[in-house]
């Protein structure tokens, strides 16, 4: 796993880990069955680092993000912040949520239609009883690129464009001076034309404030646009992770390869067969094996790992900064 020592790896190791998920499992019971939405995840976010978490719909990205924020209790495993295990008492959580902020997928939904921009941004400050509320709001808005801030104070969300709304949500998060921003699909519901702007804003915030961020998305282009590191998630687990340049230019896991092939610039398209995975029925062996194009094409059998793929569960990837893939075939051939 440590065959190649890349520059990105070096960068990651120089950054101290700020937020970390250790062997995280989150289960839901749905219709009498148990859905293992997050099924063993190790993930670390360093200070000032932007990590992208990508994967198809329903693979557990949002659940992971929510668990990192303490909005969901893990079934097992732990979330660590600044080296300490997350404490779920409401007081400690409140304190924790000053440091770590969440930006949700849907900016329109994230704003209470009855609250003005001012109220929306001031909400966090009010909850935490920060002094100089107006000051806080003003600076948060201008940092989020809504300038001059006071022009927006009394606007209602429906009077803003989608991009502006997303900025308001980001400003609401920035108002508390967080160390980490977890952005769940921050541009998915935005028009293509404004998406670039928001991403640029994230980059700028990292540059100006040294913010760390976990960006949850199903869009590989987004990861390419802004992330230092990328983690690819499939069915509750991270199947490949590593520096963006490495993972996205030379994907090793067949699932990542399939994801990449969907991009317009990709020469040939791998369309995965079968239904989207169901977290209530996680197959044994490699969890991807039922849809794996490598296995289906017989390449895995050639490499002699087909049986492994079908029967032996893979170990959970550790949270290192290096490129790594949870795949018998990839690990066998490279």
């Amino acid at each position, binding site marked *: 796993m440590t065959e190649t020592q890349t520059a990105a790896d070096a960068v990651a190791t120089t950054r101290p880990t700020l937020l970390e998920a250790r062997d995280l499992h989150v289960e839901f019971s749905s219709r009498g069955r148990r859905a293992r939405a997050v099924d063993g995840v190790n993930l670390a976010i360093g200070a000032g680092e932007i990590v992208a978490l990508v994967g198809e719909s329903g693979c557990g990205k949002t659940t992971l993000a*929510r668990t990192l*924020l303490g*909005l969901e209790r893990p079934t097992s495993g732990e979330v660590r912040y600044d080296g300490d295990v997350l404490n779920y008492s*409401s007081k400690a*959580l*409140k*304190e924790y*949520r*000053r440091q770590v*902020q*969440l930006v*949700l*997928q*849907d900016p329109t*939904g*994230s*704003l*209470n239609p*009855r609250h*003005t921009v001012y109220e929306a941004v001031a*909400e*966090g400050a009010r*909850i*935490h009883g920060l002094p100089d509320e107006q000051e806080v709001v003003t600076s948060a808005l201008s940092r989020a690129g809504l300038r001059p801030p006071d022009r927006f*104070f*009394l606007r209602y969300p429906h009077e803003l464009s989608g991009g502006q709304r997303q900025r308001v*949500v980001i400003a*609401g*998060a920035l108002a*508390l001076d967080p160390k980490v921003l977890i952005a769940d699909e921050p541009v998915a519901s935005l028009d293509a034309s404004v998406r670039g702007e928001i991403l640029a804003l994230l980059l700028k915030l990292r540059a100006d404030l040294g913010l760390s961020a976990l960006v949850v998305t199903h869009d590989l282009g987004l990861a390419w646009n802004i992330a230092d590191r990328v983690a690819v998630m499939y069915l509750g687990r991270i199947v490949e992770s590593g520096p963006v340049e490495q993972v996205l230019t030379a994907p090793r896991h067949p699932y990542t390869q399939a994801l990449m092939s969907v991009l317009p610039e990709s020469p040939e398209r791998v369309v995965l067969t079968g239904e989207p995975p169901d977290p209530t029925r996680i197959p044994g062996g490699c969890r991807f094996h039922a849809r794996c194009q490598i296995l289906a094409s017989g390449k895995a059998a050639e490499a002699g790992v087909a049986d492994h793929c079908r029967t032996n569960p893979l170990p959970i990837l550790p949270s290192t900064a290096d490129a790594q893939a949870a795949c018998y075939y990839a690990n066998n051939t490279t």
Partner: protein
Amino acid sequence: MTSVAAARRKLALSRFWGEYRRHRAGVAGLVILVAAVLLALIAPLFIGDEVTSVVESVGEKFAPPSLGEPFGTDESGRSILLMVWWGSRTSLLIGFLAALLSIVIGLVLGVAAGHFRGWAGAALMRVTDWFLVLPSLVTALVLAAILGGSTWTIIMAIGITTWPSTARLIRAQTLAVEARPYIERSKALGGGHWHITTRHVLPNVAPLLLASTTLEVASAIVTESTLAFLGASSNRTSWGTMLRASYDFGAATQGAWWYILIPGLAILAVVMAFTLVGRALEAVLNPRLRRAA
């Protein structure tokens, strides 16, 4: 900035009014309603309890409407006009207080049932559902019979039997609001139960609550009169007790149609007014309906 905020609020209000004004029936209802409430409020300036006193009544019995007695008199020669006026106080009081009681219970339980997941919410919902299917008039009648007749018992009986529909409505609305991402955001910002229910849920259910209150008042007024008819009445003159008296004293068979008609029409007018206002409010405030309308 506060002045701007006030201006904005004023603007929102005027926008609301602009929307509301387009519901002609709602405006008509509002006019009647305001008139009725005002009349009830100012009644003590002009008349008093004596208009319901049989001892002090001077009129002829069962006198048909005339110039002197525009709505005629009852079996004791009391003026129907004045009695209806005075009785509006009790009827409206019962209507408002019963609705208030029902709304308060419904609001608290509805919000709680919607907000708290798990067994607490489920249990609350079970209780609500249970109360919801109880035939409310029958239950109110039993309650009134058990508690004995007085204005307060009637209010209690109506309030206690009508809250579940409010609770259900509020719960549905709460669930809808709680499913909105801004609740999640608020939680992520560190907001607790109190913060979320008071800052997000309440303001969101309030408009609907307003609409449902007006409908509730309407049905409470009808229920009051029905209970009075079935024998559970307040000990004060209300429209319901007047109708009951018109029935007891055989107004119909004596041809004293005004005695039956006037209080009945008073109920009809006010209830209709509340209903129209309620529906108009609902149409303006409930985006689902607004889209449809």
